[in-house]
């Protein structure tokens, strides 16, 4: 059932209304992508600092000491500075890159167009969602440069460490408070986004765009929005409780009898595990929020550039929903060693194994989509193929981590760091790159430079495998995570060369990203002009000009006649049929 918004707002005039406080979903999408690009730059710089210390822990860096005097205190980088960089790296990457670019960035720009709508259901709220997220980022940067240092409790901010203030360590005062405030604001912005996505899909689809004719990108954004809607409120609640423990004298997470640095705290009645439950109830769906859009993009791009329909479209939709649903009942696998009841761990272990099944189905379907295709190796396709490889690599280690008995050894080691980086820090990022190379011509009317894109791809693919594969080996040797250096433990000393290798690989890979940024900005002005459909793709955005006009489709409402992946249909004139291509059969409402 579709409901059409009767009157639409007029095209805006003036620079501020057009590009700053815009209610146009396309501008807002680009604003989110810009925010993500700024955030990923900060995040990468932080990881460079981390890798510098891990490879050469006792080295002094005079130039860095000049910029960050407290972090070096006249000598090598301090362990607390390392932990601050670690905390902010994780936070900025997970929230401001992986939750913004795939969902609020590309989703905002392309969801309305793909379903045939003129804009999101609530354009004003959409504008608010970006600016709220922007304020959240500003506050997070304030936390990074806070008096007393940035927080050191990790992006997971476990209690009591994050709740007790500066007596627990540097950065746990103002820095931690600003961090919590930033995250709370971010939750609000995400909720606004989620509401918009859901309403738009349910109510604003064009005539003929039944749910089962939506591209898998739209299905992924839709499901991700449901996850965001249900997960972020819990984080917001947890954040409020944590803030109250810190400044309001409450004891939600602080038990009785704590003595820190010989100071006796007067709190009582709280549970440190309660924070973990609240955080991970949000935290696990959050990582699926980070990956699901990338899975949708991968399906979409593999299909386009194999010139083949997505294999088993219905199963793909089912798998997206299954992953989304099951993601809500697995959070305890982050807590196997936490002191939680071991029976509860068994239950979470089984559900965690279960979520591997729809993920495997999607992988089989991607491979089957390639089968007997005619593959075109555009940059978008290269990154999507990389996504499949990386998703498999990151996913199979989940088979180990899902078992509590194995987690006894692997929990909080580099094995976990390897697992989540390959899935989030690489596969999800590849999804973003693939989307960017694919949709850049539509957003900006010019193609990105394919040659430089391929250079970027190869450096990045070889680079990320070089960085993160060795971390599995560190983990299997029992190397704990969040260690500023390994030099204190005899059983770890022989692993130092691996750290050096990883750091050098990281520096090269990060430097190679300059190629992408250069390509992006150069192509904005100098890229080859793109027509409406340079990739010969079928979804609705490719039936509009590049870039689309303000109201996406011009005066005539789009009408959909076909499913999203009609490639190489036997008997058809071309090897693709656009969704809006009028056909002999009746339009199904």
């Amino acid at each position, binding site marked *: 059932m579709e409901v059409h918004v009767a009157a639409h707002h007029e095209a805006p005039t003036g620079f501020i209304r057009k590009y700053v406080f815009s209610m146009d979903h396309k501008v807002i999408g680009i604003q989110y992508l810009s925010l993500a690009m700024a955030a990923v730059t900060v995040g990468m710089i932080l990881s460079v600092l981390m890798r510098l210390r891990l490879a050469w822990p006792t080295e002094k860096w005079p130039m860095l000491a000049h910029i960050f005097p407290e972090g070096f205190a006249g000598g090598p980088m301090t362990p607390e500075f390392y932990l601050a960089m670690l905390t902010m790296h994780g936070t900025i990457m997970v929230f401001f890159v992986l939750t913004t670019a795939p969902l609020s960035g590309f989703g905002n720009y392309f969801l309305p167009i793909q379903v045939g709508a003129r804009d999101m259901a609530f354009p004003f709220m959409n504008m608010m969602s970006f600016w709220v997220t922007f304020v959240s980022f500003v506050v997070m940067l304030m936390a990074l440069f806070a008096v007393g240092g940035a927080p050191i409790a990790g992006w997971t901010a476990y209690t009591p460490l994050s709740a007790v203030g500066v007596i627990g360590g540097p950065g746990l005062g103002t820095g931690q408070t600003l961090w919590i405030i930033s995250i709370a604001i971010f939750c609000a912005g995400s909720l606004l986004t989620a509401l918009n996505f859901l309403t738009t899909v349910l109510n604003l689809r064009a005539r003929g765009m039944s749910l089962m004719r939506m591209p898998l990108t739209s299905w992924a954004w839709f499901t991700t929005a449901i996850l965001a809607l249900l997960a972020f409120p819990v984080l917001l609640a947890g954040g409020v409780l944590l803030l109250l423990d810190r400044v309001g004298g409450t004891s939600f997470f602080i038990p009785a009898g704590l003595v820190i640095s010989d100071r*006796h705290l007067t709190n009582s009645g709280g549970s440190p595990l309660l924070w973990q439950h609240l955080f991970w109830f949000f935290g696990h769906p959050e990582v699926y929020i980070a990956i699901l859009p990338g899975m949708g993009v991968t399906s979409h791009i593999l299909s386009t550039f194999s010139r083949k329909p997505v294999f088993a479209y219905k199963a793909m939709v089912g798998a997206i929903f299954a992953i989304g649903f099951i993601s809500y009942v697995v959070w305890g696998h982050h807590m196997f060693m936490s002191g939680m009841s071991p029976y509860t761990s068994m239950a979470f*272990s089984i559900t965690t194994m279960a979520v591997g099944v729809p993920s495997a189905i999607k992988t089989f379907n991607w491979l089957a989509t390639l*089968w007997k295709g005619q593959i075109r190796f555009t940059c978008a396709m290269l990154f999507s193929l990389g996504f*499949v490889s990386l998703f498999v690599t990151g996913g199979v280690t989940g088979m180990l981590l899902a*078992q509590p008995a194995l987690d006894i050894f692997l929990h909080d080691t580099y094995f976990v760091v390897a697992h989540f980086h390959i899935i989030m820090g690489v596969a999800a990022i590849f999804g973003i790159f693939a989307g960017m190379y694919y949709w850049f011509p539509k957003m900006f009317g010019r193609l990105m430079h394919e040659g430089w894109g391929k250079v970027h791809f190869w450096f990045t693919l070889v680079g990320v495998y070089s960085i993160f594969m060795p971390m599995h*080996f560190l983990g299997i040797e029992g190397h704990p995570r969040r260690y500023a250096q390994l030099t204190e433990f005899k059983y770890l000393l022989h692993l130092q060369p691996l750290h050096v290798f990883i750091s050098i690989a990281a520096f090269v890979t990060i430097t190679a990203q300059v190629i992408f940024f250069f390509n992006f900005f150069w192509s904005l002005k100098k890229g080859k002009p793109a027509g409406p459909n340079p990739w010969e793709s079928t979804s609705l955005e490719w039936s509009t000009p590049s870039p689309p006009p303000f109201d996406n489709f011009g005066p005539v409402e789009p009408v959909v006649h076909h499913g999203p992946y009609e490639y*190489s249909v036997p008997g058809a004139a071309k090897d693709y049929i656009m969704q809006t291509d009028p056909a002999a059969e009746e339009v199904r409402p």
Partner: protein
Amino acid sequence: MALLLGLFFAAVGTVTVGIFLAKVWWLPELISVHGAAIDRQMVMTLIIAGTVFFLAQITLGYFIWKFRGQGGKASNWHENPKLEFTWTAITLVIFLSLGISGNRIWAQYFQTPVPKDAVMVEITAQQFAWNIRYPGADGVMGRTNPALIDDAAGNYIGLDPKDPAGKDDVITQNLMAIPVNRPIRLMLRSKDVTHSFFVPQLRVKQDAVPGLSIGVSFTATKTGEYEIACAELCGMQHYKMRGRFLVMTQADFEQWLKTRAAM
């Protein structure tokens, strides 16, 4: 491009599996009874995961090369319910089997009853040290009260001087000894933030949570000196929260306790 990319994914699969098979980096030596089952399950899961990983990378690499665009027409094949059912069923069986077998070992680990002759040890973790306590000759741990904790005066765990049972408790810092081949019952506590007791060779890891007292059981099978590492971020010296973990003969252990008690 197609050949290069296909070969790269094939190489990723092959090289990674090769490194694991050659055990270039591997689990530390095993020194516990229950750890044998964990290691067996770890190897079996790695074999299954490694096979899936290898086959997937090879298949991806092969398809990339084989179906590179050469100007022909692509197929329209986009579903096969029988095939889909088969691979779903196989996946389900594999994952479920791993889940069940893994959880059986987990259940054995935490459901084994504590033998009456187990050596009782208690650790109270703090920023950034391990306080280890043995009950002494009377076999009873003295009462503790957090209000009595006074690091400056050396009462790290808040031992209550009024409780006679505590008079013979043996307390050390960052030094834990246990007798070989005897069951140990270790109670983990924390006085400030969450830490985690991890001895890699024992295959034991358990968070030490303020407000909780959590028990772990294990039996060491080999004498030697090992290390306790903290496995939960606890502050700026998390990376150097190290304890010495000594496994010795029963006779040596009793001597060690006597010597420590006299100190």
